[in-house]
């Protein structure tokens, strides 16, 4: 009787009902997302502020860039669809389909990141840097672009790792390590992604710690909570895409 389990199991009504009417993990994730939306919001406000005070803002994104970004957007939107289908499958208790839909979500997420990385590489090859660009004398153009999309790319990458852990658990670790190694050897040594890819290594280490210290079967709630994070990342892109890309289409 001395342990807390008892207290909790014996007296199901020992607590007041949750004020948010749902389980704690979901509340926690929503609160995190509220704060993360302020983090992104502040970045978007910094971007808009800079844009307003620099009227000569360049508009360099031509057909290919916009097409590319539109495809990326479609990828993210589709990944949200597959994510919500994974949650549905989890609620039916249909484990194989949870995994399949999660893998599909990860596929779209990864496709988004790869497309975006290629876009970055092109822009960098065009001599766009955080402090300057060939199209104008407004250094903030590059700075805001790389900050906003970089922060978002980081969130997508974390999301893919998160979903991978939920979908495959320990089996995901070797996959992640292989992706890291491939990324490291396939990117040229002077590319930012040669170093950026180490996010995967860090992710693998953290995932390993979580998976070994707290091994468990992820249930429908875990899937739903991971879905919340994923949809949020999608949502943020719905603002970055028009503000950063569409407002800078080449005339």
């Amino acid at each position: 009787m001395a342990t807390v389990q008892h207290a909790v199991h014996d007296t199901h009504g020992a607590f007041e009902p949750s004020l948010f009417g749902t389980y704690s993990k979901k509340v926690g994730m929503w609160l995190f997302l509220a704060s993360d939306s302020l983090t992104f919001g502040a970045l978007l406000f910094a971007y808009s502020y800079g844009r307003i005070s620099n009227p000569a803002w360049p508009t360099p994104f031509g057909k290919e860039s916009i097409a590319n970004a539109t495809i990326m957007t479609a990828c993210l939107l589709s990944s949200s669809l597959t994510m919500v289908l994974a949650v549905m499958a989890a609620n039916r208790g249909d484990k194989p389909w949870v995994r399949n839909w999660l893998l599909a979500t990860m596929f779209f997420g990864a496709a988004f990141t790869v497309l975006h990385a290629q876009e970055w590489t092109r822009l960098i090859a065009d001599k766009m840097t955080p402090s300057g660009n060939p199209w104008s004398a407004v250094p903030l153009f590059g700075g805001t672009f790389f900050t906003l999309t970089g922060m978002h790319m980081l969130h997508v990458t974390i999301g893919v790792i998160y979903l991978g852990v939920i979908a495959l658990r320990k089996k995901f670790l070797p996959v992640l390590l292989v992706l890291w190694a491939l990324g490291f050897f396939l990117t040229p040594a002077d590319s930012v992604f040669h170093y950026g890819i180490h996010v995967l290594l860090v992710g693998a280490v953290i995932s390993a710690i979580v998976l070994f210290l707290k091994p468990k079967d992820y249930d429908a709630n875990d899937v739903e909570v991971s879905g919340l994070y994923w949809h949020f990342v999608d949502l943020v892109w719905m603002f970055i895409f028009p503000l950063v890309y569409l407002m800078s289409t080449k005339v």
Partner: protein
Amino acid sequence: MHDVSAVHGESKGTYLWVWGALLLLTAVEVVLAYKQVLQPVRMLEVLLVLSVVKAGLITMYFMHLKSEIPRMRWLLTISVTGCFALMWIFFFRDADRILTLGVK
């Protein structure tokens, strides 16, 4: 384990519709932007409204905020949008000022 889909009261059909609507809105945004249909400021406004609609669809349907209890729904959305509204009101006024008063 409770039956979440029953609680959410949504089906594959709804999700497909939402997905379609999101894609459609994206297409509208791209066309508007690419054809430069509107003047910059007006276009920004239209794009932002469309983005807010998209964000609303995502939170309400994909994130199931629609089926959370009203207290949670309203407290979360109001606190976050309230902060944004404040930033909107007070930040941009000064971004303009630099143009009109300051050294460029």
